[in-house]
């Protein structure tokens, strides 16, 4: 460690005072009513975590109601129907409205500071996702007050959730509401992936990334691949409920197990989607508390990646008792045990770090919650290995043993680290620390309460008590154990209440809190303002605040990168993904109403569809699209030329192609679309293996003649060629191109026409989508293609409008590049779909 001289630093000092004032002005948080337009990560991140915590409290209250009902046998405190609604809403809210949003919120709140970026690269996208989640989540939760809440469990298994057994709109609220909230989660994931890969400070190579950034990168990648499966599942079930397309009805070739496959392909990774960021947070806090670097940094990275990957190979262990083949049982039992290896690596690494720093390890409130997490999570992991053993799972399945196991994993693995996080990172957004005294009370009450509530459930379950029962006979010897669990639940709730009192007494949003109160080594504890750090540091270590002497003062004096606002607007530094070399200055959007209107319109569209108010829903959808168009019209700003970001470094302010951050966002979006389509292909082939007798040509109308798919494919190819030509004929800067607009419109028309021809061909054969699972799948291919074609159509027309107004040219071409990328993907997906729908049945003969 050596004291750098001023000439070693990227910039000279002292910096002009006006620079700081300009940064404050540009990044100022809107006040009063305009606070709703804010996009700064500290504002929307705090709002996000606050909303997630509100849902935690609401779902927790539902848990207390359930525990009160189950405290004694033969209890009539809640009606059976209301109990079903409550346990469904509790699980759904905890998983979809609390756990995933809470960790995503921490990503939005902490990552820019941890990476010393001014903000994540798409701040309005974050704000859109957050408002969509808040509006949609509140409406969904409120259904419990109107007897409209779903009652099929948080997993919504058909056939129970089919129209025949779940009439009314209750299930539809789950299907449309949750499907929509997952779209918001995907938007957040795209933001996080591009943010972690491209907005790191210079010098922060892959090997120097904070573990939380690694965890969030893997978390977001898992969302990209896992969530599309459940989005497809919710689409299929909603379509079956509304239009009678029989994807899950066995009598017409469907299979209820298809839902379980799709749901758990999402649902099991979901557990790790929740756990990995929490593990990342723990890996950040333990070194600080022990005042020593994390032991086994590389092993932890390996463990995070391995857990993320292997979690996709475990979904069938939720289906061991459904009658699947012995070979599948063996595969997934093995995989379920294998995933404990990377989890174990992390636990041992944390223990080793604490041991390495045992002379200095401080028992603070975050430390207590971390120790509580280790105790509870390890117990949950051990029972996880037990239920991975197939014969044991047959005994414990659907019993209270599983309820105990999943709460030990999820509460231990996520809630305790989250509370540690609240205490540890509160100084980042609060001008006051939270109370150590109240925090210790909160911890002990929660720890004792949790174990009192959930440990007895292992025994209740092994004694045969099934889960999801409204009440039970008093003579089953379950009363005393249930009474203990209920007492524990209320003790735990008291702990949460103490935390809320602590928040009310001490949490004050604003600057001026203690700087680096824990003596942490990472960048989020640099001096911060609304603009994040005054200058973006050059990083040479994993714990720069420990290893780079005087870094905080240098950054505050503006001696590192981008100490000002050279374009006069909001901006941050984009660096290369592997070596973190500065590449360009990203011009970012500021506050706006557009994302808020778009979020409200999107939420209204989905929720109004639920109650079959189609006309108003469509109007809200159109409003949302219009708001998105206004929003994106403001994004592609003109090139400002090169600007000085350091003494010897000038960077461009506009970038296209693979170096551009928006290009990567589009690639990630295409991965989402690809995952959705792969889930569809799996569903198609799965239903064929289950019911080959309804597949064409044997059990359904013969396929259309080849002229139809050939024409459809030709249109897709022609459209692709038109896009290529349009890309080569983009005008010079300052010129309009009506010919280019025409080419884009023609290409979009070709995409739409290809779907119309495909549907026409099947209509001609008399194939009715409600007649069999095969027919439903054939039409579903067009539904999915139509969905992406709709987006392509809007993007092409949007790019065409910019061409016609001289705002798109051969240099300023990001809008076109994004439209073209999605077009190529959609064309490829369309061609593959034609091959599947027309080729596969012919292959079968």
């Amino acid at each position: 460690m050596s004291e750098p001289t001023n000439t070693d630093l990227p910039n000279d000092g002292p910096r002009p005072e006006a620079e700081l004032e300009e940064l404050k002005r540009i990044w100022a948080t809107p006040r009063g009513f305009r606070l709703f337009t804010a996009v700064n990560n500290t504002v929307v991140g705090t709002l996000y975590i606050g909303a997630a915590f509100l849902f935690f409290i609401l779902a927790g209250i539902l848990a207390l109601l359930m525990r009160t009902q189950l405290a004694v046998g033969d209890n009539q405190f809640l009606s059976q129907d209301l109990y079903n609604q409550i346990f469904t809403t509790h699980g759904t809210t905890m998983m979809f409205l609390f756990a995933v949003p809470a960790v995503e919120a921490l990503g939005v709140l902490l990552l820019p500071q941890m990476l010393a970026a001014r903000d994540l690269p798409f701040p309005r996208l974050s704000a859109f996702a957050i408002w969509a989640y808040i509006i949609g989540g509140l409406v969904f939760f409120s259904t419990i007050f109107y007897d409209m809440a779903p009652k099929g469990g948080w997993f919504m298994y058909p056939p129970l959730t089919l129209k025949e057994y779940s009439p009314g709109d209750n299930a539809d609220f789950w299907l449309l509401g949750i499907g929509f909230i997952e779209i918001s989660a995907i938007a957040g994931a795209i933001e996080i992936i591009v943010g972690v890969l491209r907005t790191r400070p210079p010098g922060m190579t892959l090997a120097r990334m904070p573990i939380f950034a690694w965890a969030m990168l893997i978390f977001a990648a898992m969302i990209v691949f896992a969530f599309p499966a459940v989005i497809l599942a919710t689409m299929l079930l909603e379509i079956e409920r509304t239009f009678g397309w029989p994807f899950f009805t066995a009598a017409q070739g469907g299979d209820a197990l298809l839902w379980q496959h799709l749901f758990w392909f999402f649902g099991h990774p979901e557990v790790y989607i929740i756990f990995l960021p929490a593990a990342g947070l723990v890996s950040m806090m333990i070194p600080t508390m022990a005042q020593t670097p994390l032991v086994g940094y590389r092993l932890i990275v390996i463990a995070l990646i391995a857990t993320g990957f292997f979690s996709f190979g475990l979904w069938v262990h939720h289906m061991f008792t459904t009658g699947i083949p012995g070979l599948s049982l063996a595969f997934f039992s093995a995989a379920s045990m294998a995933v404990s290896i990377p989890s174990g690596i992390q636990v041992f690494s944390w223990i080793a770090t604490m041991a390495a720093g045992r002379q200095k390890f401080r028992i603070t409130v975050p430390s207590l919650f971390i120790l509580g997490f280790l105790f509870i999570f390890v117990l949950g992991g051990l029972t996880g290995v037990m239920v991975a053993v197939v014969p044991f799972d047959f005994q414990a399945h659907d019993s209270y043993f599983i309820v105990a196991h999943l709460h030990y994993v999820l509460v231990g693995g996520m809630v305790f680290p989250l509370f540690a996080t609240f205490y540890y990172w509160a100084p980042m957004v609060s001008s006051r620390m939270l109370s150590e005294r109240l925090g210790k009370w909160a911890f002990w009450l929660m720890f004792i309460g949790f174990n009192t509530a959930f440990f007895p459930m292992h025994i209740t379950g092994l004694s045969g008590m099934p889960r999801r029962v409204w009440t039970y006979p008093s003579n089953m010897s379950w009363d005393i154990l249930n009474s203990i669990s209920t007492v524990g639940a209320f003790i735990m709730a008291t702990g949460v209440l103490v935390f809320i009192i602590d928040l009310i007494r001490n949490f004050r949003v604003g600057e001026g809190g203690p700087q680096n109160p824990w003596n942490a080594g990472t960048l989020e504890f640099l001096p911060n303002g609304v603009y994040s750090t005054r200058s973006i540091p050059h990083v040479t270590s994993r714990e720069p605040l420990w290893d780079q002497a005087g870094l905080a003062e240098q950054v505050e004096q503006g001696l590192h990168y981008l100490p000002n606002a050279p374009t006069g607007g909001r901006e941050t530094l984009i660096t290369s993904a592997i070596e973190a070399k500065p590449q360009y200055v990203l011009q970012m959007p500021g506050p706006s109403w557009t994302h808020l209107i778009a979020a409200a319109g999107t939420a209204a569209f989905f929720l109004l569809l639920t109650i079959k108010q189609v006309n108003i829903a469509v109007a809200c959808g159109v409003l949302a699209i219009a708001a998105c168009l206004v929003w994106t019209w403001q994004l592609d700003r003109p090139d400002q030329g090169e600007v000085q970001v350091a003494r010897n470094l000038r960077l461009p302010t506009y970038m296209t192609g693979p170096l551009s951050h928006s290009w990567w966002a589009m690639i990630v979006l295409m991965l989402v679309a690809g995952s959705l389509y792969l889930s569809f292909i799996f569903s198609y082939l799965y239903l064929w293996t289950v019911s080959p007798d309804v597949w064409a040509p044997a059990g359904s109308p013969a396929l259309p003649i080849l002229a139809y798919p050939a024409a459809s494919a030709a249109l897709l190819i022609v459209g692709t060629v038109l896009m290529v030509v349009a890309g080569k004929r983009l005008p010079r800067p300052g010129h309009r191109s009506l010919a280019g607009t025409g080419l884009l419109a023609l290409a979009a028309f070709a995409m739409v026409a290809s779907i119309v021809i495909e549907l026409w061909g099947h209509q001609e054969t008399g194939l009715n989508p409600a007649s069999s699972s095969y027919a439903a799948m054939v039409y579903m291919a067009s539904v999915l293609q139509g969905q992406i074609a709709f987006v392509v159509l809007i993007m092409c027309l949007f790019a065409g409008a910019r061409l016609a107004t001289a705002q798109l040219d051969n240099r300023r071409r990001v809008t076109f590049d994004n439209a073209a990328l999605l077009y190529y993907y959609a064309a490829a997906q369309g061609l593959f779909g034609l091959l599947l729908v027309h080729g596969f049945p012919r292959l079968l003969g």
Partner: protein
Amino acid sequence: MIGMDDRNSSQQMIGTLVFILTGPILWAADLTAIYGGQSSLCAFEALPQGVVGWLVIATSVVLILADIVAIVSPLPLFNLLVGRPPPPDQRDFILGAMRGLGTLSALAMLYFTLAAVLLPACEQLR
């Protein structure tokens, strides 16, 4: 424009990430081959059950061997994917992460394959 000294950073990014994930990608291919491929082959009834079993085992062996080759000699693969050697200051991290993940993946593939060796391939198909 002084900072633009890594114009190939997109290839470097994709190549490096794919390189680190070599083991898990092979593992995913193994899972797909065993769980998806085996199910489809059995459903087609085009091949005798014994042949399907051997195909599954052969696929797994090939993928495990590919993984081991990558672990033992990673630099040719890195150069192939990225087009240049790893950055010196990250070489140990990148190679170590790839080897660690490759080893875990090899173990997982071995575990899967054992099931295929021990159990009949096409019974109780679903």
